């Protein structure tokens, strides 16, 4: 995978622009945000957008734009942590299941069990159990999504395992650890990266749902979903509160899906053949 060539893919580039724009804005929130995102101003509640408050204010009189900038940061942070955690856990489970057939059926039963009901329901139940916090959201979403990663990883390991050079390495008595490290894991990286990009997108949506249902990270620290939830009751009087964070979520998710598509096309030769 050559980085310059991947950038020539239009979907990848578009995704990079979308995600990058949001990520940079969120990263620079401390400088870009015109106001303190948690500072109340009860004299200017539900204020319409104007030159000072480009996206208006919420019912606490807080600047919606500033909250969105910081909120995107929270959402991205949670999403990224979920990607890493589910990648590690799902990756290891998938690797073990794919390599050792004896534990395969057991591990996959458990994964099937976790996948047998909507991930979001499991995440809500977990978030309630553990008590709302950013960490809880990460744990809940990781438990919900790691099985998907494990599935993909297992599939990739099974494919890699059947390759001639792996068979050969086993035949000459190479140690398992070495085979996994040298041959199997590198071969699974491409599908894993694609999968985790999609999980990033799904995790951002799911985090928004958690916050919307009221079991996300507690106020006043905003996440994008929490800002929507905050504005839902004043949808008609102050539509700017709920509308703009939704657009940002859509940008992020769209961008991540485009990135995933671009990665998949670039990394998966089979798909490339069909798409070209």
């Amino acid at each position: 995978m050559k980085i310059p060539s991947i950038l020539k893919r239009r979907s990848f580039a578009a995704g990079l622009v979308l995600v990058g724009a949001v990520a940079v804005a969120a990263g620079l929130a401390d400088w870009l945000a015109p106001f303190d995102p948690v500072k109340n101003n009860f004299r200017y509640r539900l204020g319409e957008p104007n030159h000072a408050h480009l996206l208006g204010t919420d019912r606490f009189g807080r600047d919606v734009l500033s909250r969105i900038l910081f909120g995107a940061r929270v959402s991205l942070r949670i999403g990224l942590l979920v990607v890493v955690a589910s990648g590690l856990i799902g990756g290891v489970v998938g690797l073990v299941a794919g390599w050792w057939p004896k534990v395969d059926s057991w591990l996959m039963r458990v994964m099937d069990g976790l996948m047998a009901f909507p991930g979001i329901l499991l995440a809500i139940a977990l978030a309630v159990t553990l008590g709302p916090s950013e960490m809880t959201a990460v744990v809940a979403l990781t438990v919900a999504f790691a099985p998907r990663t494990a599935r993909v990883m297992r599939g990739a390991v099974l494919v890699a395992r059947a390759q001639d050079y792996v068979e050969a390495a086993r035949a000459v008595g190479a140690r398992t650890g070495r085979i996994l490290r040298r041959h199997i894991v590198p071969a699974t990286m491409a599908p894993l990266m694609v999968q985790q990009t999609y999980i990033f997108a799904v995790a951002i949506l799911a985090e928004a749902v958690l916050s919307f249902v009221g079991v996300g990270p507690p106020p006043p620290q905003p996440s994008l979903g929490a800002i929507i939830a905050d504005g839902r009751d004043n949808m008609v009087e102050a539509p700017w509160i709920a509308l703009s964070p939704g657009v940002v979520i859509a940008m992020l998710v769209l961008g991540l899906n485009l990135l995933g598509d671009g990665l998949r096309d670039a990394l998966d030769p089979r798909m490339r053949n069909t798409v070209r």
Partner: protein
Amino acid sequence: MIRGPGVSRRTFNAGLLAGTAAATLPLPAFAQKRGGDVVMAQSSPPPTIDAQTSSAAASRNISLHVHETLFARDEAANPVPDLAEGVDMAADGLSYRFTLRSGVNFHNGKVMTSADVKASLERYAQVGMSKIFMLPVAAIEAPDSKTVVVKMKNVFPGFIENLSSPRAPCAIMPEEECAKPAGQGGRIGTGPFTMGEFRSDSHIMLHRFDKYSQNMNYKERDGFAGKKTAHFDSVRIRFMPEGGARTAGLQTGELHVIEALDAPVAKRLESDRNIRSYTMMPWAYQTLIMNTAWGQTQNLSFRRAIQAALDLEEIMAISTSGLYRMQPSWQHPGTAHYPGVAGLEKFLKQDQAQARALLRDAGYKGEEFAMMADNTNRPHIDTATVVSEQLRAVGVNVKLSVTDWPTIFTARTKPEGWCMWPLLMGIEPYEGPYGVVGFFAGASPAMMKQDPVIEEAQAKLTTSLKLEDRVAAVKMFQDRMYDQALSLKVGDSGWIQATRANVMNFAPYRIPRMWDVWFA
């Protein structure tokens, strides 16, 4: 003897609902129209329909259409007879003799007798949510079919106030229903509506009870008592969690009545001629409950620092979206036990410099300050959010955890792990002083540690037969709350109920009452 209206009606609460006077203007009788199916929405489903076992407003909205009590509260929240003709209290305060109204039908066709009343009171003493007020009861007797005598172990002047409270109503049910365990009774009562289909995440149906026995001692509806007339064929109460959807439903005419309307929404709807909104002030008050047994709030200086750090008006303005008034007393002005507000001014002003000084006195070094709030109630989250900002401004390291109600409940009944939580008290101040003072007294006081002065006030309140002694007890309670900052009262908040314009003769009250209301 407390009799029906005209005999000993007290009118000292007249000012309580002054804001609504316009809405209660009597209409000519010929305008009344029978029939129609009215649709009302509330945000959450009732946790149970067993009236006796829940103090949740979502249950009350329903059960007080279906059930009645011996005594009930009138328009100004005074106890008046409902299923009883009246009561005679013995001069020593140790027995109450209730005379029952005759010919009162239950929904199952049975006529109410003293056996039913006795069984209902006895069930309440077992499973009733506020059964604590039945503790002083020694025995309940039914000497004849029209009389029930309640014998007391000790004097308890608040007995009728509690018996008549709608909080967790002491509903009168048929004797055979009373054998049902908590949570499983409550479908059969004497009220103007019978209970129909109940789908906990959708709706409940109420149907007009055509054999309803009106209380002819009154001329018209009066609070939860009075002469009630059901005009609608049915009432469908829908449970709609999404505020936007409720408002939209009212605007489109899918809904005729909604239990609550947000102040900014009400403002927007002012121009809509199809909608009428009704504002009640006061409806409730916002409080901050502190833990005096654990954490920084054990320390008086720290509690006083919080008192000084807060801008009470900002909290109220934001958490009520502008529908509030600043009133420091722990009783509503104009009610019987209102103790006045003398001597409270010095506790009400925000003074951040003093707050910082008090924090230093308390030896506060920036440890985590554990505050919690439940996410089921928006005023609670909003209050907690604003309060934590104000406390951070003076250097308190607030850690706010927002979770659902069962979690908060479990946490707040434990003596450790939390310092403060916001609570909107609505029905208790409406009831009078007993629920309010009692909440901070007794074996498990809200602030976790008994306070000797509060206990003394509670003892005086619950045993004094003279009103002025009880008012003095409330004043003692109130002064102590402020002086020791045991918990804080923030301010009064209002409430808006709304109907379509064709819903006639509606008057706002603790629940949106669907009797004596009809379609134009």
